[in-house]
């Protein structure tokens, strides 16, 4: 079996589905001849032509609106926004139209579309290229929001997103695009939507994260294992809808939970998950639910970004403090 990095996985999924579904198009800025600023769409123009691989003018609001118009005609529109920090102009279209047409027409008009964008920092990119927009979208009724953490999930979840009959926001882990490879079949198999994944079983603490932060979280779990702390790793993957059942089941077992997110702390997915625990898992909790997150500041420019993004040390510190407050085996 061949191995692929995350950007290759996305490129493969797009190729596979463009082959399988004649009614699919991709659109966005510089996605054709240029193959996308991160090369996610390389090869599509040559394989499928300019009619289905659409280089758009420089207007994110237009891209979202055009994807909506296309999708209402039964065309599976997969739009790329170059960085999630440039998605704000799409919000009116996504919230007031993409997420609503099915409901307001009672099923007559639907929007089977996907809007993809690299999300998060850590690559020393320019200003506005390193933001985390999970909450911006996850709070919107009528949407699905996915945040894959590795190549095989990027592949399987992107296929699922494209095939889903409703609008999906697909936030890709920028700094993992080329960070590591995984072995998987390019067989067009989609992964299930609306579900979290248990990446590692553990007994003492449930470590929850998604997207690029799964990477640091896994390293933290490795380090903690050496200290005798066994962490169960949950990759949320789907931020909307959120699979609380999987998280609750894990915490019912471990009694402790630390949630890791890159986004600013206030109003992030970590808060939504902690609230779910406070409501449905309270009696299982031995210790406070800690959130390791970015700060409630603007994402700093490149020279300071590593002081904003949670690192292994901050994650381990939080887990140790949870263990201190509720020692193992008590």
């Amino acid at each position, binding site marked *: 079996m061949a191995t692929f990095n995350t950007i290759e996985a996305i490129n493969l999924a797009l190729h596979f589905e463009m082959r399988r579904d004649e009614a699919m198009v991709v659109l966005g800025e510089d996605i054709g001849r240029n193959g996308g600023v991160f090369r996610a769409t390389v090869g599509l123009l040559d394989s499928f032509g300019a009619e289905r691989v659409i280089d758009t003018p420089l*207007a994110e*609001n237009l891209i979202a609106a055009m994807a909506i118009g*296309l999708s209402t*005609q039964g065309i599976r*529109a997969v739009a790329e926004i170059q960085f999630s920090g440039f998605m704000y102009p799409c919000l009116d279209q996504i919230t007031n139209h993409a997420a609503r047409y099915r409901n307001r027409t009672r*099923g007559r008009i639907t929007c089977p579309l996907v809007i993809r964008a690299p999300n998060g920092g850590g690559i020393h990119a320019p200003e506005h290229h390193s933001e985390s927009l999970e909450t911006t979208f996850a709070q919107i009724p009528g949407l699905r929001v996915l945040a894959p953490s590795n190549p095989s999930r990027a592949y399987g979840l992107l296929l699922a997103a494209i095939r889903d*009959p409703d609008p999906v926001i697909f936030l890709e882990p920028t700094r993992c695009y080329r960070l590591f490879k995984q072995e998987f079949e390019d067989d067009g198999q989609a992964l299930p939507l609306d579900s979290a994944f248990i990446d590692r079983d553990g007994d003492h603490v449930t470590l929850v994260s998604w997207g690029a932060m799964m990477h640091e979280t896994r390293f933290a779990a490795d380090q903690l294992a050496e200290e005798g702390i066994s962490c169960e790793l949950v990759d949320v993957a789907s931020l909307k809808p959120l699979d*609380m059942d999987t998280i609750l089941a894990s915490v019912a077992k471990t009694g402790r939970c630390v949630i890791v997110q890159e986004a600013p702390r206030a109003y992030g997915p970590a808060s939504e998950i902690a609230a779910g625990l406070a409501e449905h898992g309270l009696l299982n909790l031995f210790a406070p639910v800690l959130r390791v997150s970015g700060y409630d500041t603007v994402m700093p420019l490149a020279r300071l970004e590593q002081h904003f993004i949670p690192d292994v040390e901050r994650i381990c510190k939080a887990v140790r403090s949870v263990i201190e407050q509720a020692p193992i085996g008590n």
Partner: protein
Amino acid sequence: MTTSEPSAETVVASFEVRRTCFVDADGRLLAELPAFARDAEQLQRMYRVMCEARAIDKKAVSLQRTGKLGTYASGLGQEAIGTALGLAMADEDVLIPAYRDYAAQFLRGVPPESALQYWAGDERSMNFPQGTPSHHDFPFSVPIATHIPHAIGVAYAIKLKKQQRVVVAACGDGATSKGDFYEALSSAKVWNLPVVFLVSNNQWAISMPRENQTGAQTIAQKAAAGGIPGEQVDGNDVIATRFVLERALKAARDGEGPRLVEALTYRLHDHTTADDARRYRSEEEVNQAWKRCPIKRLQACMRAIDCWDDEKETALIAQCQKNAESVAEAYLAIAPDKPVAMFDSLYETLPESMQWQRNEVCERGDGD
């Protein structure tokens, strides 16, 4: 030649905006009528459609005033545009309407009672009936102008499918101030899409007069920003409006690309029933505008060419009132939707994790 006027200053592009009008405010012909308008039945049909729409509009306002309808946006005075549009479009075309285009929607199969049901606050009203052109049309969008760029995607899909259909994106003068309007205009010709942008310039955006809405002398000239033809038409002259729209639709259908049509009209009613226009415009201005009323104009024109008389008029008015009454009855007979309906068209399949919310609403009962 002075040094400040170099000979090296050369003209690289030029444009002009034309306005079309066949029938003046008093019903006098300014030019020979186009073929369709030389047929008395056609004129009478256009007249009837406008009168029916106005009667329903009047009924809607009175229902709102008596607490039987929510906030309502009247189309009073703009009936010619919707009528011309509805008659100019082919069934297979796609209408992305503005909220005063009732006549066009009715002509395409939206039941008038659904229009009332919408303003009462019932989503089912936007599920336009199968077997009518409206079934592939869009409901209008309350967020001003945001629907216009949808036309780019719809028209692109039509081109991709090699269909001979045209998309009409309609909006008001105020809507042309929003980036959404422009982004569609600016890009439409990049793909030479079959789109007709129709702007009903009724001189007001709630309390904002047209001249303060933009520095542009005409809305039509904004077409230059997209490199497409832009023209004005007297939107209270149903003949001219239909003529210009048929020409634009034919051009788009024949692959000549997008066009912008600015139809000049006037909003005779308050912005909506929640508004009181006396706060910001004079009675005098409104009285003057009534003189340009499209219904009065076509009637005068028909009488001048002897295809209308008092008898026909009396009969039609009675008919329209009766029709409006039955529309109101049909509307009032509609029972409210079930509360759980708020879950049932949100996604194709409601996510498992939301089931408990639906159950909660279910258990609280379906009363309204």
